[in-house]
């Protein structure tokens, strides 16, 4: 269609493109593309560092979010270049809202992630030490975590406003916990009911599912180790092991009902998911309960509830 003639080409040589133009194009790509394309040339590397590019990748309300941080952190964040700020926020969560929540950006595409601390949740019997204890552990991002000593009535609720979430994003909601030093019990056979609903919506829950807060069972299912056909410990050494097979009543789909191990040493149980369109102001209510079985349960340490984008492979 259009042919660029020789004499024209001379006047519009692309490599004379000002750095500002390169910055503008880069700002419409992704953090990953920007990182990679800094290898194109030294001009690209320089453009790839510019604040105007990374400002676009940060969420539009990042200033007001980080201003909720405690003062020392807040000031240090303002000193960083936008690129360093972005990278920082993807690597390490910051505490906001008086230490009640943590905030972070998702590594892949910079979407907003939050963890609601156990202190900010509604935990039935949470203030009664014989049922729940509040302790500090070094590997928690929050100053306190809740240790479940023993309850019959297990009920935890949390809330987050959709205006805090990134638009057009499918979020997963996860209970973040681990086994306490005493054994976890009461969760292996009795599932908990997890639900995600819009508070005051009056309608049906967005998601409702049964989950087992039992890491051991999940681990066995994940590695497809079968309960031995023969009893007796010696059978393991005398005969070849039976071929691995999934337990009769469960399938690989049921993996969704068990906790997964996180890279930070905690476990996460997916309670459900929520697609945030954006542009609205609704309270999402998250709950996980076991109040029907009547059995005693205990031996968990609860860090909080995390709301983060679901990985794309799901």
């Amino acid at each position, binding site marked *: *269609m259009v*042919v660029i003639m020789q004499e024209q080409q001379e006047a519009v040589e692309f*490599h004379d493109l000002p750095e500002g133009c390169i910055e*503008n194009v880069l700002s*419409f790509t992704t953090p990953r593309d920007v*990182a*990679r394309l800094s290898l194109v040339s030294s001009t690209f590397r320089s453009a790839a560092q510019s604040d105007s590019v990374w400002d676009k990748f940060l969420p539009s309300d990042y200033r007001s979010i980080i201003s909720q941080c405690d003062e020392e952190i807040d000031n240090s964040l303002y000193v960083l270049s936008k690129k360093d700020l972005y990278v920082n926020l993807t690597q390490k969560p910051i505490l906001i809202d008086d230490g009640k929540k943590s905030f972070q950006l998702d590594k892949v595409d910079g979407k907003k992630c939050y963890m609601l601390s156990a202190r900010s949740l509604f935990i039935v019997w949470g203030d009664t030490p014989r049922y729940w204890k509040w302790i500090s552990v070094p590997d928690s991002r929050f100053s306190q975590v809740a240790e479940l000593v023993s309850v019959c009535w297990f009920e935890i609720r949390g809330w987050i406003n959709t205006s805090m979430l990134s638009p057009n994003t499918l979020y997963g909601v996860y209970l973040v916990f681990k086994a306490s030093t005493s054994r976890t019990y009461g969760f292996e056979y009795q599932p908990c009911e997890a639900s995600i609903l819009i508070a005051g919506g009056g309608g049906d829950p967005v998601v409702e599912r049964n989950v087992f807060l039992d890491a051991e069972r999940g681990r066995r299912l994940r590695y497809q180790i079968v309960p031995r056909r023969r009893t007796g410990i010696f059978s393991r050494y005398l005969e070849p092991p039976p071929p691995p097979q999934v337990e009769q009543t469960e399938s690989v789909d049921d993996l969704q009902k068990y906790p997964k191990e996180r890279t930070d040493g905690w476990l996460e149980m997916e309670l459900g998911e929520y697609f945030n369109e954006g542009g609205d102001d609704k309270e999402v209510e998250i709950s996980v309960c076991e109040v029907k079985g009547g059995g005693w349960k205990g031996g968990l340490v609860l860090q909080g509830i995390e709301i983060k984008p679901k990985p794309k492979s799901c």
Partner: protein
Amino acid sequence: MAQEASSSTSSKTISLKTGDGEIFEIEASAAKQMKTVQRLIDDLGDDITIPLHNVFSKELPKIIEYYKKDITGEITKDFEAEFVKDLNDDEVKVLFLAANYLDANKLFEFLSQNIADRLESKSVEYVRKYFGVENDFTPEEESKLREERAWSFRGIKEDE
């Protein structure tokens, strides 16, 4: 040249002369959207044919077409998709450079997005060829950068 007293901007047209000597008409309100043109009008007056040395007859009509739509408020996602649909990479580049030269912000932003889309997940070598830039890193610098940014190369076909 005789001039109409107090002519309204909306009906006035401006003459633009391309680097290869062709003349095109554009409405004054559309010309206003191109800051370089507006500056030239401010300096030279709106009766004179405005010379645009770095824009040529191949691309100016397309730019005028865009801004004609813009002043009537009719730019939609569909129009923009249609606008770039049949353009090859070189044509988009030429328009992009022209939009930059003319300081035509809206078109410039739109074409930035379009070029970014065309470069998505492309290799470093592809982008170098596209922009016509030389690799000015030493082998040591390049391998150090590659190492630091190894994560960003996963899933990219490097010889594209």
